[in-house]
């Protein structure tokens, strides 16, 4: 599933492009080459974008927005990251994102489930304000149920209080 999603997405884009070919007939020889380039461009844009998502030197490879205890306020230091992902979503309208909100393990599981949802929602709202489309982003909460870090330490708690931005094929 995870591996199939991106090739499936690409073949969908390619299929959409090639299907425009046969419908135009006469002037299409030049146009078709143009379409071909457009396809390649779209492809390479998506391709470079996807590469950027996993390039450790690119800010897009960072996916987590961190929060204080019992807070769903985005910290100023997270703004460049959110802006970069908003730009990526605007430039790649075919990309979809799932935002998973998480909390540390302290306190009520149900309150944490709601808190995780708020964290996912505020990240989504910030991305929408910066131009991403509603249809591109879904926000869900994992509450305290899927901790990234398991030890009962302050460092682990901080690591677990976050929203993760995942793209198609990553969730």
């Amino acid at each position: 599933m995870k591996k199939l999603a991106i090739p499936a997405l690409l073949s969908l884009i390619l299929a959409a492009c090639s299907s425009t070919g046969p419908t135009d007939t006469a002037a299409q020889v030049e146009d078709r080459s143009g379409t071909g380039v457009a396809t390649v461009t779209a492809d390479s844009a998506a391709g470079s974008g996807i590469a950027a998502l996993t390039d450790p030197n690119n800010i897009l490879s960072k996916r987590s927005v961190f929060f204080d205890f019992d807070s769903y306020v985005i910290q100023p230091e997270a703004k460049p990251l959110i802006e970069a992902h908003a730009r990526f979503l605007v430039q790649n309208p075919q990309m979809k994102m799932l935002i998973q909100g998480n909390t540390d393990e302290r306190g009520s599981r149900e309150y944490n489930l709601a808190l995780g949802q708020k964290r996912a929602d505020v990240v989504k709202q910030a991305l929408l304000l910066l131009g991403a489309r509603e249809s591109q982003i879904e926000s869900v909460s994992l509450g305290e149920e899927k901790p990234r870090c398991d030890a009962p330490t302050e460092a682990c708690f901080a690591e677990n209080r976050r929203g993760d931005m995942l793209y198609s094929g990553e969730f």
Partner: protein
Amino acid sequence: MTRTLTLFRFLLAIMLAGFALGARAQLSIEITGAGASRFPVIIPIFEHEGQLPNSVTDVVRADLDRSGLFSLVDLGPLALPESVMPDLPAMRGRGADAVLTGSVIAQGSGRYEVRFRLFDTQTQLELGAMALPMTAAQNRLVGHRIADFVYEKLTGQPGYFSTRIAYVVKSGPNFELQVADADGMNAATALRSREPIISPAWSPDGQRLAYVSFEQKKPIIYVHTLATGQRRVVSNFKGSNSAPTWSPDGSQLAVVLTKDGQSQLYVLNADGSGVRRLATSSGIDTEPFWGRDSNIYFTSDRGGSPQIYRISAGGGSAQRVTFDGNYNVSPRLSADGKLLAFITRNAGRFQVAVQDLASRQTTILTDSARDESPSFAPNGRMILYATESGGRGVLSAVSSDGRIKQRLTVKAADVREPAWGPQPRQ
């Protein structure tokens, strides 16, 4: 008598339904604090009990001892037949305030009758007598019933030894929703999953559990009939579906949904139909608890920090209930509607607290740091909750006056999300 038979049929139905009874690790209970003054009782071994493969008396003694309210005065191996008036002044001389006498009478075809009488050594009066039919396999069931009888006669409140508890065990990547007797015995697994299970809630008739399962990669609410294992999705709206609580008549559930935005309170019928919004707030509303006083108590951060509020089950405006501190969550109301148990953050520690709703007096009952999910025994005397010990989840119980403390543990597993079931049906 009919109650015992009904219970027996119910247990039999569970066994026939293929529950993995008893095979797994049991919860073991350790008393970590007792009442200041325990009521001294003599519970000699029941006459002719040796004909049973497993003792009834041991179950009665263990229940009463663990309750923290009674101390057992040892009489040695001497039996006091139910049909003979005991020497009450002599029993009083041994320091006992009450004496239980009993006999097991074989009735053929593997059936027995347990007859017992309770006496007050001070007034020299009989406090009551009963006869319960049983099979050899029912020693625990009957023992719990006798302990309930003694508890009620001596404290004036119903016992809770015949009740059951539900909880979630996490071992490695696996989650199990289990149901056990209140003493931790007879654990049975109702649901196994690779994804989290949270927030089990007993139906008022004790036959079903509502809970939240992440098995479809998002929180969805199920209602699960324990005897048959039949499950039904009752809430699977867009977004998250969580925190179920039953109406006192069992016909409805209050739940938390995010289908219209952030976490808000809704009410739906127990079959999942007829969803309607209960309240609207600008913040998080969650963890509803539907009290028998027809109020729904819930957690909300509408005032800036999570606090407990209540709203009429029919709707209307919400009133704030907790004011001390900046983190008060997980409200649970006692059956008599007088006490509210909840989790409070006190100097960075999460602890079980109770508020006397009439006087608004709040008392913190525990000195632990990671308490969650309080749940009252049906008689309101004990509160079961999840906490942490030695780096893993354990269940503990504390009396609502804070004096009696018990710990329930399953070896090598994380236990969480306890819910104390109702009194078994008569």
